[in-house]
């Protein structure tokens, strides 16, 4: 009897990039949403909240805040305490992303 073995590795590799990439993109968007929800609204525009953006693609995403003064909000100034908004959002997302990527890997 002849047995033919067919490797699923190429298919898994393709799915891995697609599925994990999708989870990473959704995770970055959740971090952006969490940061926007946390950041204080200053008296005048432009507001940090309106400048938070997700950049990147495929398997690498970043949540960026281009405004120079955002770092002083996150880490504090000489005469103002920090109001962390981006790091807490990323920290909250960390276990969610780990669980979702583990779930993706489990079905491949």
């Amino acid at each position: 009897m002849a047995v033919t073995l067919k490797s699923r590795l190429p298919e898994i590799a393709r799915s891995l990039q697609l599925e994990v990439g999708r989870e990473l993109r959704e995770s970055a968007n959740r971090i952006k949403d969490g940061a926007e929800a946390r950041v204080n609204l200053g008296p005048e525009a432009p507001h940090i909240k309106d400048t938070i953006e997700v950049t990147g693609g495929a398997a690498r995403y970043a949540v960026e805040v281009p405004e120079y003064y955002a770092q002083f909000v996150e880490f504090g100034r000489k005469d103002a305490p920090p109001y962390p908004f981006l790091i807490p959002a990323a920290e909250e997302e960390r276990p969610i992303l780990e669980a979702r990527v583990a779930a993706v890997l489990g079905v491949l």
Partner: protein
Amino acid sequence: MNKEIRQALFAKITGEPAVTSLLSDPNAVFDDVADNEAEYPLVVISKSSGRDVQAFTKRAFRTQLWIVKAVVTDTTSDPADDIDAALNTLLDRASLTITNSLLLGLWRESDIGMLEEKNGEQYRHAGGLYRLIAQ
């Protein structure tokens, strides 16, 4: 528990001459923001974030990130970097006695570096984000 962790960090930092000898005053360590009258160089510590990790029916541990930074008024980053290095030596992979709690880990996770200009003065911030895990 946050109070006890903060107190433990204060005690650790203010008890280390390698750090305090670089400050304007041995007690120039502040919670969240320095006093208006504070002299530089100084250290500011502040909790950045934290969450509980559950196991079955109770909390297994807490994981937190703390901002620990030096603030100096200088035209170069050297004095702030020196204090930051002393803080790093003191806190990275260090022990910490926390009232009613057990430290499971303490390490530096990333750098903080900022230049702030105000009224013609330069204020340089140098420090790190420290991961603290406690039961």
